[in-house]
C-alpha cells in the first residue's frame, strides 16, 4: 500500500532561512530519515512557508484568490512523503522516525493512487504542490458513482494540462487516516485527520508553472466545486 505522510508542525522563521544553522540541522535530520527509510520512500517534498502560499476558495462559480492559507491552525503542513508499506504497522514503523513525528505530528493517509513523472518538466519552471481541501460527503468514497464521476473529471483535467502536471494522487477519506505523534519515544495514535472538520485533504497535484499567474490559471481548472479550497504551496528546490 502507499501512504501519504503529511508533516505537521509549527513554522519557524529561522528554520525557513536556508542560510541558518536551524535549517541545516533540520536538513540533516531529514537526511538521516531518508537514509533509514531508503526504498520505502516513493516521493517526498519540502514546502516553502505558508506565507508564500496562494489559496483559492470556491464560492459558487467564483474562485476567490488570496495570499497565504485559509486555516488559522498554528501547526501547518511543512512537507510530505509518499511511503510504500505493506500495511499501517509498516507505515508507522517508518513514519515514527520522521522528525515531524517528534516535533509535531504526522498524518498517514492511504492513497488510492499516486503517480509522479517529472521528465517533461519545463525548464525554469517553479514547482507547486496543490492541496485539494474539501468536505467529504458519505457518497464520495472509492467505489461510489460520485467518486467515479470525479475521477473522470480529473482525468479530463490531467489530459488538458498534461504538460504542467508532474504528479498527483487521490486519498482515501479522512476516516482512514491515522495521526502519529512520538512522545517520550512512544507512538501516540489517533483516528482521522489532523485538520479540522470540513477542510480535509482529499487529493493533491504536483504542478509546474512559469509564474504566479500561470499557477493560478492552472489551479482554477482543477475540477473542484464549493465548498472546496485549493492551497498552492511552492516546493523547496534543494538543488538550486
Amino acid at each position: 500500500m502507499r501512504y501519504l505522510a503529511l508533516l505537521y508542525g509549527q513554522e519557524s522563521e529561522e528554520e525557513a532561512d536556508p542560510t541558518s544553522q536551524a535549517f541545516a540541522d533540520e536538513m540533516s535530520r531529514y537526511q538521516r530519515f531518508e537514509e533509514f527509510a531508503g526504498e520505502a520512500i516513493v516521493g517526498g517534498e519540502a514546502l516553502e512557508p505558508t506565507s508564500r502560499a496562494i489559496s483559492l476558495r470556491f464560492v459558487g462559480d467564483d474562485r476567490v484568490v488570496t495570499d497565504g492559507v485559509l486555516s488559522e491552525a498554528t501547526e501547518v503542513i511543512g512537507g510530505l512523503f509518499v511511503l510504500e508499506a505493506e500495511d499501517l504497522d509498516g507505515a508507522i514503523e517508518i513514519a515514527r522516525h520522521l522528525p515531524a513525528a517528534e516535533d509535531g505530528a504526522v498524518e498517514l493517509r492511504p492513497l488510492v493512487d499516486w503517480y509522479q513523472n517529472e521528465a517533461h518538466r519545463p525548464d525554469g519552471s517553479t514547482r507547486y504542490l496543490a492541496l485539494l481541501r474539501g468536505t467529504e460527503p458519505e457518497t464520495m468514497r472509492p467505489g461510489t458513482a460520485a467518486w467515479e464521476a470525479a475521477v473522470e473529471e480529473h482525468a479530463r483535467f490531467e489530459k488538458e494540462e498534461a504538460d504542467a502536471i508532474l504528479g498527483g494522487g487521490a486519498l482515501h477519506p479522512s476516516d482512514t487516516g491515522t495521526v502519529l505523534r512520538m512522545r517520550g519515544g512512544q507512538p501516540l495514535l489517533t483516528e482521522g485527520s489532523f485538520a479540522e472538520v470540513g477542510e480535509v485533504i482529499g487529493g493533491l497535484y504536483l504542478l509546474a508553472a512559469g509564474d504566479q499567474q500561470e499557477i493560478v490559471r492552472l489551479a482554477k481548472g482543477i475540477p473542484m466545486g464549493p465548498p472546496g479550497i485549493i492551497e498552492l504551496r511552492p516546493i523547496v528546490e534543494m538543488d538550486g
Partner: protein
Amino acid sequence: MAEVATSERLEATFREEWGRCIATVARSVGDLGLAEDAVQEAIASALRHWPRSGIPERPGAWLTTTARRHAIDRLRRETRRTDKEEAALRELERVGPSSHTNVYPVADDQLRMIFTCCHPALSAVAQVTLTLRLVCGLSTTQIARAFLEPEPTTAQRVSRAKRRVRDAGIPLRIPDRQHLPERLAAVLACVHLVYREGYAATGSENLIRASLCEEGRRLSGLLAELLPNEPEILGLHALLLLQEARRPARTTADGDLVLLEDQDRGAWDRSLIDEGIAVLDRAASRQRPGPYQLQAALAAEHARAPSWEATDWPTIVALYEALQRHAPSPVVELNQAIAVAQLEGPAVGLQRVDAIDDAKLVRSHLFAATRAEFLRQLGREDQAREALRSARDLAPTEAERRFLTTKLEGLGTAEG
C-alpha cells in the same frame, strides 16, 4: 453422533464457535467484513440444515468450511477485485474450502483477531465495539443495549470500524516480540474497559449491562489461555475474577451503592475469590510485576480480609506505593491516602488528599467525597457538608448522587 438441534443448543453452539470461526475465515480472506458476512451466511445455512440433520460432531469445522465456500462465491461474483481479494481468492481456490490445514493453529487466528480489533490506531470505543462483535460474537442489538444507545448508532460504528481496518491497512497479524508489550497494553486496556462498562452499571441498567462483565471475564480468560506466559494478562484476569466476586455485594436490591467497608462479605463469591487468587499466584510466580497484577493483589488483599477494620492496611499501603511507581495516577494517590488514613488517622489522610496536584481529579466527586469523609471523622461537620454537597453535584451517575444525598442527610442537615 449428531446432536439434536434444539434452539438453545443451536444458539449455544453458534456462540461458542463464532469467535474461532470468524478468526479463521478472516485469516484466509484477509478482510473482516467479508469474513463476518460469510460466517453469518454459514450460520443461516446451519439453521436450515441442522434442525433436520442434527448438529454435526465438529460444528466449528462445518461452519468454517461453509463460510469459506460463501466467501469464495462472494469473491467470484465481485466484478472488480482488489489485489488483496484476488490473492485471497486464488489461495482459497488452491486449498479448497474444507482445508482444515493445521498450519495455522486456531489459537493464533483468534489472537490475530484480538490484536486487530484492539489496534491502537482505532479509537477506544471502536476497539471495544469490534471486540464485542468479532471476538465475543455479540450482535449489534446486544451491543447497543449494553451501551444504552440506539441500534443504528452501534451498527454504523461497527461498519465504520471494519471499513477503517480494511482501508487504512490495519493488519490481521500478531505483533512481533519487539512490539508485543505496547500492543498487549492496548488489548488489556480494551478488555478492562469492557468489564468496567458493565461494572459501573447499577439498578435497572444492571441486568443489561452486566453482560459486559461476563464478556470482559471471558476475554481475559481467553487471553490467559492464548498467551499463558504473560503475567499482566493473568493479572487482569485475576483482577476481573476478584471484582466479579464482590459485584453482588456492591449494590442493594434497589440499586443503591454499598461501599467496600459496608459490604456484606458473606455475599462475596468465595469460589471466584479462590480462582482469582490462584491466577494471581500464577502471575506472581513469573516475577514480572505490573499494574494489573498490583491491582489484582489489592483486590485479593481486600477479599482475604475478614472485615474492613481487620484489613492488612500496611500491605495495602505498600501495594499502592508499588502501583504508583508502575502506573502513577492521581486516582491511585487518592486511594493510597484512604489506606494511609486507616493507619495514621484522618488528619494525615486529609493532608495527603489536599496535596494531590491534579486539576481533573480535584474537580471530581471522588475527591470531594473522600475529603468529606476525613472532615467528618475530624468533627469538622460544616466543611464536611460543603464537600459532600459538591461531591453530590459532581457525581456522574444517579446511583452515586443518591448515595451521596443519603450521606449528606446522615450528617443531620437540611437539604442544601
